C-alpha cells in the first residue's frame, strides 16, 4: 500500500513492527529484509513515489521531484561545497551514477581492526556483498550503451598511459539513455525503487510517502515510533500530523539528515560523536570543449574510472549532466553562455574525486536545517589541483580546444602550456570550486560506546529500539562510490534486527 498526501486523515496513526525512515540505499534494503522475514514494515519517505515511466530529461521537473531542497545545499567551509541528495522513494539510488564498487579491502581491514568485529572484515562482509550484487544486478555493460564521452576518456587515458578500470554498474540491459541523474527512463538502473521496494511491498510493507519525520517517540528510555507531518504539495508546508508506532525504528535518512534527527534528542552522548566524523569525497569538475561532436547526452554515466592515481587518493571519470545543470556551472552568463551552450554537443564533463584526509561535522541548525561543515586540508588542495591538471592534460591530448577549470580566478585555458598557471594562481583554497554527493560517517558504528554512536547491530548505544542504516554508520570514508557498502551494511543490520525481533 502506497500512501500520499491526500490519503492522510486529520491525525493519521499507524502501527507496525518496524518503521523505516527513508527508502534509499539503506532504508529500502533493511525494510525489504525485514518484510521478507515476515515483519510488518512501514516505510516513511519525505519524497514521492515516482515510477520509471514518469522519468524525463527535464531538470525543472525532475529536480523538485527527486532531489532534496531542489538540489540547493552546501557544506560550509573553505571552500563551500555544494552537495545534492535524493528525496524520493529510492532516495539517491534513483539519481546516482549506479557505481557498484565494493568497500576496498584495506578499508574493511581498518574497520575490523578498530572494532574487533570480524563481521566487518573482508571475509565477514563477503556474503552480504554477494547478496546485494545479485539483487541489484551489478555487472558490466553491453557495448551498445557506451557513449562518445566514455570513449574519449578511455582513449585519452590510454594515450596518457594511465590505468583504466571499467565500472560494474547496477543495471539490467542498460541501453545508454544517459539520464541517470534525473531517473532512468528505461528501468534498467536497479535503484532501490526498482530492485528492493517492489520486494518489500510484495511482502506486505506499506510506504507512507510525502511525510517528513520531525521527531522520535521515546518512552521509558526506548524508541517506540516516529512523529512527522505530511507535506502539502502546493505550498510545501508541513500540515497533517502523522505518527507511526513500532517495536523498532530504523533511521536511514542519509549522513546529513540522520544526525539532525538524532541530535534533536541528544543521542550519541557516550561518545559525543553524533554529527561528527563527517566525510564527503569532494570532487572537482573539469569541462572540455571539443572541435567535434561528442554528444555526451547519449551513452552512460561513468563507463570507466581512471585509477592510475588511486594510491594518491585521486580517481578520474567522465560524468554527463543535462544542459540545465551544466549551464548552472558555467563561468559565464548572457551572450557568452548562449554561445557556449550552442556547442553543447561538443562538451565533455569529467571529474576528479579525492579521498578525504580530514573530517567535518553536521549540526542541527535553526528550523531543523542541517548545517554541515567541512574544510579541506592543504594536502587535499594539492590533490584537487593535480586532479584538475591531469584531466586538462588528457583533454588537450585528445584535441580539446578549451578546458574549463574548477578555479574561480582561472576559469578556463586554451592551451596545455597554460596549465602552469594553476600553480601560479591557486594559492588559496577558497578559489577552488568543489562538489559532492558522497556524504558519510556522522553516526559511526563501533564496538565501544565511547568511540561510536551505534553498536555492531546498528542500534544506537543510548537509545534502545532505534537503529541506523545508511552511510552515516561508516567508521571511515570508503574511498569509492558508497552505494554497495551502504546496501551490504543495511542487509546485515536487517538480518540481525529480524532475528532480534523474532526472538522477542
Amino acid at each position, binding site marked *: 500500500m502506497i500512501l500520499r498526501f491526500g490519503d492522510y486523515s486529520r491525525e493519521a496513526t499507524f502501527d507496525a513492527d518496524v518503521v523505516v525512515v527513508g527508502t534509499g540505499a539503506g532504508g529500502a534494503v533493511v525494510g525489504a529484509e525485514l518484510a521478507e522475514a515476515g515483519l510488518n514494515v512501514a516505510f516513511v519517505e519525505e519524497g514521492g513515489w515516482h515510477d520509471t*515511466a514518469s522519468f524525463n530529461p527535464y531538470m525543472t521537473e525532475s529536480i523538485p521531484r527527486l532531489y532534496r531542497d531542489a538540489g540547493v545545499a552546501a557544506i560550509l567551509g573553505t571552500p563551500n561545497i555544494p552537495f545534492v541528495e535524493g528525496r524520493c522513494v529510492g532516495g539517491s539510488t534513483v539519481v546516482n551514477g549506479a557505481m557498484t564498487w565494493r568497500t576496498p579491502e584495506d578499508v574493511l581491514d581498518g574497520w575490523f581492526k578498530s572494532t574487533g568485529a570480524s563481521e566487518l572484515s573482508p571475509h565477514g562482509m563477503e556474503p552480504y556483498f554477494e547478496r546485494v550484487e545479485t539483487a541489484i544486478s551489478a555487472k558490466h555493460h553491453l557495448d551498445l550503451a557506451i557513449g562518445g564521452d566514455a570513449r574519449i576518456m578511455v582513449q585519452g587515458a590510454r594515450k596518457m598511459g594511465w590505468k583504466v578500470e571499467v565500472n560494474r554498474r547496477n543495471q539490467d540491459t542498460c*541501453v545508454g539513455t544517459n539520464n541517470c541523474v534525473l531517473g532512468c527512463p528505461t528501468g534498467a538502473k536497479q535503484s532501490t525503487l526498482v530492485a528492493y521496494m517492489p520486494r518489500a511491498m510484495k511482502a506486505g510493507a506499506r510506504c507512507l510517502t510525502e511525510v517528513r519525520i520531525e521527531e522520535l517517540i521515546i518512552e521509558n528510555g526506548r524508541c517506540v515510533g516516529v512523529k512527522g507531518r505530511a507535506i502539502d504539495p502546493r*505550498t510545501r508546508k508541513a500540515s497533517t500530523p502523522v505518527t507511526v508506532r513500532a517495536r523498532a525504528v530504523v533511521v536511514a535518512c542519509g549522513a546529513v539528515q540522520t544526525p539532525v534527527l538524532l541530535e534533536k534528542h541528544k543521542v550519541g552522548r557516550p561518545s559525543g560523536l553524533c554529527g561528527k566524523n563527517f566525510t564527503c569525497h569532494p570532487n572537482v569538475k573539469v569541462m572540455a570543449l571539443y572541435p567535434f561532436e561528442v554528444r555526451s*547526452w*547519449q551513452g552512460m554515466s561513468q563507463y570507466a574510472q581512471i585509477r592510475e592515481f588511486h594510491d594518491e587518493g585521486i580517481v578520474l571519470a567522465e560524468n554527463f549532466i543535462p*544542459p*540545465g545543470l551544466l549551464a548552472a556551472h558555467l563561468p559565464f*552568463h*548572457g*551572450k557568452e553562455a548562449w554561445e557556449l551552450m550552442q556547442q553543447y554537443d561538443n562538451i565533455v564533463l569529467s571529474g576528479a574525486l579525492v579521498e578525504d584526509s580530514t573530517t567535518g561535522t553536521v549540526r542541527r541548525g535553526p528550523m531543523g536545517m542541517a548545517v554541515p561543515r567541512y574544510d579541506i586540508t592543504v594536502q587535499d588542495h594539492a590533490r584537487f589541483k593535480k586532479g584538475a591538471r591531469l584531466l586538462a592534460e588528457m583533454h588537450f591530448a585528445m584535441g580539446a580546444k578549451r578546458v574549463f577549470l574548477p578555479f574561480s580566478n582561472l576559469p578556463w585555458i586554451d592551451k596545455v602550456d597554460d596549465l602552469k598557471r594553476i600553480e601560479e594562481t591557486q594559492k588559496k583554497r577558497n578559489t577552488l570550486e568543489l562538489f559532492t554527493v558522497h556524504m558519510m560517517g556522522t553516526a559511526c558504528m563501533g564496538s565501544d560506546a565511547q568511540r561510536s554512536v551505534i553498536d555492531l547491530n546498528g542500534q544506537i548505544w543510548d537509545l534502545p529500539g532505534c537503529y541506523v542504516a545508511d552511510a552515516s554508520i561508516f567508521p571511515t570514508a570508503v574511498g569509492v562510490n558508497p552505494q554497495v557498502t551502504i546496501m551490504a551494511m543495511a542487509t546485515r543490520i536487517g538480518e540481525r534486527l529480524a532475528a532480534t525481533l523474532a526472538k522477542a
Partner: protein
Amino acid sequence: MPEPVSRHPNDGWILADPLPMRPSTHRAFLAIIAALLPPEPVLPGILEQVDDTTRRLLRYMHPLMSLGFCVMLHLLDWSPIWRLRSWRRIRSLAPSRGSEILGGLAHSRFAPIRLLLMGAKGAILSTYFDLPAVHEALHHDPRPFMRGRIALRQRLLAGGAPTEADLIGPGPGGKP
C-alpha cells in the same frame, strides 16, 4: 497516457505553486533575470517562464534557503551602488549594463561576493536552459533518442539480438 520521457509526467505529482515574493523583491528578481539571460535569441514570454519556474523551485528549498535567496536578490539589485559602479539599482539599468555589472562580481577577491552571483546565476540559467523554447532554439531534443532506446531495451528483453545500428555514435560506436 503521455508518450515516454515527455514533460509533465502523469504520475499524480503536483508541482508546487510559485513562491510569493514581495513586490520589491519580485521587481529585483525580474531585473536580475533580464540581466543574466542571453539577449539573443528573443523568445516570447521567456522572462515570465523563468520567473514562474524558478519561484516554483524555491518552494522546495528549506525556508531559510529561500529566504536567503530573496535577501541575495536585493543585495544583487543594489550591487551597482555598493560597488560604486552606478547610482542606480539593477532594476533601473538597461539589462546590458546590469549584465556587465553583475559579471564583475564573478571576479571579486571575496568568496561571499562571488557566491552571490553564483547562486542567482545557477538558479536562473539552469531554469532557462531547461525550457522547451530554449531547447528548440539550441536544436536539442533528447526525446526521440530516448524513446528509441526504450524500444531497443524492450526488444532486447524480448530476446532480440543487438545490431551494429544500435551502437551509439558519433563515429563508430561500441567499446573504445
